[in-house]
């Protein structure tokens, strides 16, 4: 365990950011298990494309924090090989858009080897990547494709939405003997808050109720959870009590939690930054209808991204994404 203490971004108080929380998780993993190493484009000298691994190269050296060439297929493949050989690699892919270059490795190798080897070969690999829009990075850096990965059996897909989850998600992911994909929403990196010392681990199998309510269930994940909470606050001012469920794990879905919530509120709004057609929101709505149809008092509403490549221009980008006002409007429609 390293005894070095590092300066914090906010030395005056206890606040930390989502970025720092992820870094602490990484540092803890690197320090506590020799098999863990981090690799990806710019993770070393540059400190990670989004600054998550800043300082880790200096702390753990080039064997543990490795810069890779610009070849997603190659370094994800190398990660799979290292995992098969007994290591616990953490691979960073800059954004979900680039991960498609490694899709063959992720889907055809990482996700299938357990099954194809009759259980003999597990791939204990963690792949981190950024997803989502909201920072004017234009279409090729802004899409939300985690729903595609949530379609694939053999993978666990996580989307930490809070600082506490960001802090502890990595150790839980490394405990999984099979490949885990970690989706970090780009707009969350600067989100600041205080770590709850009572939280020492995250339960990857359970969705979390972030706010309790009685009139409508708002199901969200990742970068949309804070928007859903903002909408719930606005609705509370109008006397509408919204329950906000944070999925946390996109595969396997904890449908017991959100269906259970809908059974109590009888109404649902699903928020998903992915495109509506064939999206994760469609899966969630479908499960609500399958399991709680006769509990519904209104059709389920969905708030998704406009079905366009995410625009660069700020106002257009805002207009294309789910926003608190749109979530609140959908909730009003289902309760009225």
């Amino acid at each position, binding site marked *: 365990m390293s005894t070095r203490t590092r300066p914090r971004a906010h030395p005056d108080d206890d606040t930390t950011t989502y970025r720092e929380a992820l870094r602490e998780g990484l540092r803890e993993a690197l320090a506590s298990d020799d098999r863990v190493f981090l690799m990806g484009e710019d993770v070393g000298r540059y400190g990670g494309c989004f600054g998550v691994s800043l300082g880790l190269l200096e702390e753990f050296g080039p064997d543990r924090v490795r810069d890779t060439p610009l070849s997603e297929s190659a370094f994800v493949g190398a990660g799979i090989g290292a995992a098969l050989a007994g290591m616990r690699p953490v691979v960073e892919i800059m954004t979900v858009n680039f991960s498609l270059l490694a899709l063959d490795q992720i889907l055809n190798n990482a996700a299938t080897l357990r099954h194809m080897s009759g259980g003999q070969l597990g791939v204990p690999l963690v792949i981190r990547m950024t997803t989502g829009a909201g920072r004017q990075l234009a279409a090729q850096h802004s899409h939300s494709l985690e729903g595609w990965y949530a379609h694939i059996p053999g993978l666990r897909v996580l989307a930490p939405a809070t600082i506490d989850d960001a802090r502890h998600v990595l150790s839980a992911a490394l405990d999984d003997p099979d490949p885990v994909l970690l989706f970090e929403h780009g707009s969350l990196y600067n989100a600041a808050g205080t770590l709850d010392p009572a939280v020492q681990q995250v339960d990857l199998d359970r969705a979390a109720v972030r706010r309790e309510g009685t009139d409508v269930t708002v199901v969200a994940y990742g970068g949309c959870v804070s928007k859903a909470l903002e909408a719930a606050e606005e609705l509370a001012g109008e006397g509408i009590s919204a329950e906000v469920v944070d999925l946390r794990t996109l595969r396997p879905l904890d449908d017991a939690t959100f269906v259970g919530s809908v059974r109590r509120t*009888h109404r649902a709004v699903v928020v998903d930054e992915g495109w509506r057609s064939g999206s994760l929101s469609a899966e969630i709505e479908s499960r609500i209808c399958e399991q709680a*149809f*006769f*509990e*519904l*008092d*209104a059709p389920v509403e969905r708030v998704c991204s406009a079905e366009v490549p995410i625009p660069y221009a700020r106002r257009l980008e805002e207009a294309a994404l789910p926003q608190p006002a749109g979530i609140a409007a959908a909730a009003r*429609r289902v309760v*009225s």
Partner: protein
Amino acid sequence: MAEFTMPSLGADMEEGTLSQWLVHPGDRVARGDVIAVVETAKSAIEVECFESGTVDTLLVDEGTTVPVGTPLARIGTTSESRPTADLSPSTPLVRRLAQDRHVDLAALHGSGPGGRITRADVEHAEPEPKPEHDKTTGLSEPTHTATARQQGTEPGRRKRSRGGAEASTPTARPPRPVHSDDPAGERQAPQRVRSSPLARRLATELGIDIAEVTGTGRGGTVRAEDVRSATAAGDAARPAVPNVARAATARLMSRSKREIPHFYLSTTVDMAAALEWMHARNHELPLSGRLVPAALLFKAVALAARKVPELNGHWVDDDFVPAEDVRLGVAVSLRGGGLAAPALAHADALTVAEMMATLRDLVARTRGGRLRASETADPSLTVTNLGDQGVEAVFGVVYPPQVALVGLGRIVERPVAVNGLLGVRPVVTATLSADHRAADGATGARLLTTMDRLLQRPEEL
């Protein structure tokens, strides 16, 4: 198939009015479900069902008065119907299809998961004959049989032959498209009610016709809230129970005094120990759970009745029949006159706190006219407590066919000699009115002294 009959809700009840059905044909009911409201001379009583199964036919219309024992409904018992007690509303498609084909969904038995009515069930059901076709009923019956036979023997060509057969059936309407987004279909079925699944489920549970409910949702959709407010309005609109309780009490008491040779005993019970114990308990209890002396007195009567079984029972056919347990009748004066004496089952087994809670609940529901049938079934011994009315003693009239009644007066402070010294003690006068045919004074004295003794050791109550 079981029969649900007009229950006897008291020894004096000869007939009852079925004021409300809470189920419809096709509803699944479980043993203990409240399925009807019956108006007796005393109050409206919710009647439970003693079978589990599916309601087949309702034989008596609401508002009809029939003698006790008259069959009111036929219930298909569990073995011959679907096993689930779950109420299974149908899907929108099935409802639309049923409407198009004039099939009464309530009369169908579902073959889907959990007894749900499926599309195939509707397709195979015979349409309900319309009144204007009554004349042709003789004709239409064989046609249907032929249709069924044709379907059965030619499964491969079922779809086509069904369409053809239906077109030639005088009672059937031409098939309509069932696409939910088809605007023509929407226009042709203007009476279809838009309603949420939850509203429909609630309506089924509450026995409300959803077509009668005004929807306030988008596009006039009936939502759960609309169904709930419809129930509330329905309750408010229910006709008040006619005040015939006075007459019923008159009839019963006349019979008692005519038939029963009463004798009366009286004793004074020192309540100091009981009240001291009660006040100590109340210090520990939350406000809502605090005890009143009646709970202790009733418990003491119930225990005494168990210890003196000769007075706990009924006089039937010139013979005394002891009751198997203590069903303590509680005489409750009704608003607007008359008495009711609902029964507290296993009163001797309740703790004092349970007695308190049960008593409070029972009295409230008796006055509100919402008693359950099981609570009106013959008590084995009745208590009448007039202490809160300020009198010191009450010598009651035995409720036939019971053989005894305990009367309790007000707890008053009196100078009492205890162990040779005079002190001021709280005392209550307990009386016994008993049927001399069933018991003698000595037996009655045993009941009162047992009660007295029990109240001296309240911690053992």
